[in-house]
């Protein structure tokens, strides 16, 4: 260790009291699952953290039945303001136990503690706080007067932001008056189960939120369950497609937040230091395990070399290693499977002729790790410019004119997010108009807020989460609402038309 290196500064894990085994959370209680329990491991050490129950189809039945009972008997009978008060309670409890949740998240997911502590968990509290206030104001949600809840929501979430995705799903569902059965990702169940303890502390009525852990079979049983009224899913486009197929022909409402291949467009007049930070944040935040990650850097040709040099120099200062260390910038890849996929796609990137570069850094001996990687000389047909890598891998492409930048940015079946870097407001607004993406960041990237709708165009899914728009999927317009343009019988007779013409 030289005098320029940082000494380890690990976050204390002493405030975390985990159990050795976790059950399913159904009807307000932890119960054993009928499937074979599975281990949750720390991706940074490959050591077991806890054993997690595996819900089979019968368990899913029980959870949906509990949610239906809670909907019929309790939750749909509560006033909006009372529902809101429960959500405010949950927001406060999350804030009180914030550090514990952050430590658990980093342990289970592998993300740097500074991210779980400063981004994930504060946003979780903010999400509940925001939607709590909506619960008694639903007439203003944009779906017409006196909307009603849809009923039981089936929610399936990914492993990249385990607790945050839970909040994105549960907060608007409960505010709108639905009850919930949620399935966390197989590799990251832990914080959802700690959250279940918070629900007990909040004294949320039994069955309003049920959490079933397990694998793909569990998710499939939940999504396909005839007793659920809506499906909210965040995950891969492949899985989203399967869900869209499976609910075809039913009246289940569906929200899908799927993959992305965002373009981060840097014009030659961009504020260059901020842009470099934004590019790094755009693709290396959360090890690149972000559906809206800025994985395609589109840089104007005249500044390409300068931008790439600065990026390389900035990447050389990033610290990769123990996620629990407060100085760590890049943590562990979440699973061996994901690491294998990143390796496969980056190998293909080299084979197809792109130039690969990574900074010198030592990877820990145990756990799943991948060096931050930049590909230059990438063309639009390369797999690394088309497929979602979902890892710390940036593909650099160039353009000459704004028109070319827009054409290249839109040249993807995805349409989740995009970034624009320029000091020229008129150009930024014109480009933003033409980008086919649901979230556009101008001179920033990867910003999230409960008040701001999030979701994609095209194969990045449909529906929005966050903001007023995020309530729509969870609400049903009032039954029998007359057509917006009411026609009186008199208008329909030709006689009255002649009269009107006089």
């Amino acid at each position, binding site marked *: 260790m030289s005098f320029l290196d940082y000494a380890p500064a690990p976050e204390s894990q002493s405030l975390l009291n985990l159990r050795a085994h976790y059950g399913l959370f159904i009807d307000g209680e932890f119960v054993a699952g009928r499937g074979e329990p599975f281990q949750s491991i720390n991706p940074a050490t490959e050591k077991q953290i806890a054993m997690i129950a595996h819900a089979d189809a019968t368990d899913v039945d029980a959870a949906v039945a509990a949610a239906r009972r809670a909907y019929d008997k309790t939750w749909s009978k509560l006033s909006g303001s009372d529902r809101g008060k429960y959500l405010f309670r949950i927001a406060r409890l999350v804030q009180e136990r914030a550090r514990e949740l952050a430590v658990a998240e980093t342990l289970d997911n592998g993300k740097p503690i500074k991210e779980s502590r400063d981004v994930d968990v504060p946003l979780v509290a*903010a999400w509940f706080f925001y939607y709590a206030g909506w619960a008694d104001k639903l007439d203003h949600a*944009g779906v017409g007067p006196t909307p009603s809840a849809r009923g039981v929501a089936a929610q399936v979430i990914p492993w990249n932001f385990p607790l945050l995705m839970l909040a994105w799903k549960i907060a608007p569902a409960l505010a709108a008056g639905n009850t919930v059965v949620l399935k966390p990702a197989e590799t990251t169940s832990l914080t959802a189960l700690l959250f279940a303890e918070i629900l007990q502390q909040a004294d949320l009525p039994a069955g309003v939120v049920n959490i079933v852990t397990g694998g793909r079979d569990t998710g499939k049983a939940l999504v396909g369950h005839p007793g659920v009224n809506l499906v909210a899913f965040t995950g891969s*486009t492949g899985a*989203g*497609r399967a869900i*869209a*197929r499976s609910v*075809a*022909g039913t*009246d289940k409402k569906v929200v*899908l937040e*799927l993959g992305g291949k965002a373009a981060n467009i840097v014009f030659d007049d961009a504020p260059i230091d901020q842009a470099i930070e934004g590019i790094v944040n755009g693709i290396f935040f959360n090890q690149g395990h972000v559906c809206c990650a800025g994985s395609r850097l589109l840089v104007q040709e005249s500044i390409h070399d300068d931008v790439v040099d600065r990026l390389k120099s900035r990447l050389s200062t990033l610290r990769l290693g123990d996620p629990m260390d407060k100085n760590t910038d890049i943590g562990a890849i979440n699973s061996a499977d994901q690491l294998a996929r990143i390796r496969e796609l980056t190998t293909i990137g080299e084979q197809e002729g792109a130039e690969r570069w990574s900074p010198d850094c030592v990877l820990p001996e145990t756990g799943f790790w991948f060096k931050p990687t930049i590909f230059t000389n990438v063309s639009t047909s390369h797999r690394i410019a088309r497929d979602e890598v979902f890892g710390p891998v940036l593909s650099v492409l160039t353009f000459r004119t704004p028109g070319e930048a827009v054409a290249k940015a839109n040249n993807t*079946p995805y*349409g989740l997010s995009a970034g624009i870097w320029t000091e020229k407001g008129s150009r*930024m607004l014109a480009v*933003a108009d033409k*980008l*086919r*993406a*649901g*979230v*556009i*960041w*101008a*001179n*920033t990237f990867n*910003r999230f*807020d409960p*008040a*701001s*709708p*999030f*979701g994609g*165009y*095209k*194969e*990045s*899914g*449909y529906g*929005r989460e966050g*903001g*007023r*728009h995020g309530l729509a999927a969870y609400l049903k*317009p009032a039954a029998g609402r007359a*057509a*917006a*343009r009411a*026609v009186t019988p008199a*208008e*329909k*007779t*030709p006689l009255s*038309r002649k009269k009107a013409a006089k």
Partner: protein
Amino acid sequence: MTRLAVPKTYKLYLGGTFPRSESGRVYEIRSHDGEFLANAAKASRKDARDAVVAARSALGGWAGATAYNRGQVLYRIAELLEGRRAQFMAEIVQAEGVTPAAASAQVDEAIDRWVWYAGWADKYLQVAGNANPVSGPYFNLSVPDPTGVVAIIAPQTGGSLLGLVSAVAPALVSGNTVVVIANETMPLSAISLGEVLATSDVPGGVVNVLTGSPAEMAPWLASHADVNALDLVGAGDLDWVHLEIDAAETLTRVLQPENGPDAASPSLARILAFTETKTIWHTKGLI
């Protein structure tokens, strides 16, 4: 001595022109009491694909027009419909066998519905969009944007003109372009509507009208990767669940069939069903 009438040849309306089906196929259209009216083009899979190409090419111009302009162009269609009301009434009476009064009422309602939707073009965005109070130095705005190319199976029952208008007009308001499969047995007012569109200020390709068999063409549109949304409003008698399954392959947005007199009734929800919410974060400087 009566004058010998000059009957009209009914063709497709694709990309602003009136071609026959590339397949050379036609099918007989008969009035409600069995009298021969016309040989309508029986559009093929390739015609449907050509229609999608035309709709895709027209999208940039139509979606990029100002809201005020789009509103005026849509209103102009209502003006032209008004001028041709006698023709539409005659076609409706022949095809549907209703009284002239009922046909007139249907034309009235179709025109009024165009006017109602035309007026939304420069307003729906204000109702559906909003600024978002995010925690940070950003101006954050959510606005609806057209979904893209919308394929529509027009209502196959009810008023032949009103059903078509009710399905096509809302998709156009935000700037989508449309491929519509007309009422199979009563397609003549759809082609006449195409003539109205051709002589209005609607750019070619913004609306493309196919006549023929919905059952034959719909699967190709549902699975077409360049179709962004699928309105199955008139697909109730088709195997529409499979159309929805085909559409899932590219996450095409789907509106399920509607039946009864309220099918495709006018609503803001119908406009918004074919929009995507775009949220833009603008950084604010520190001063």
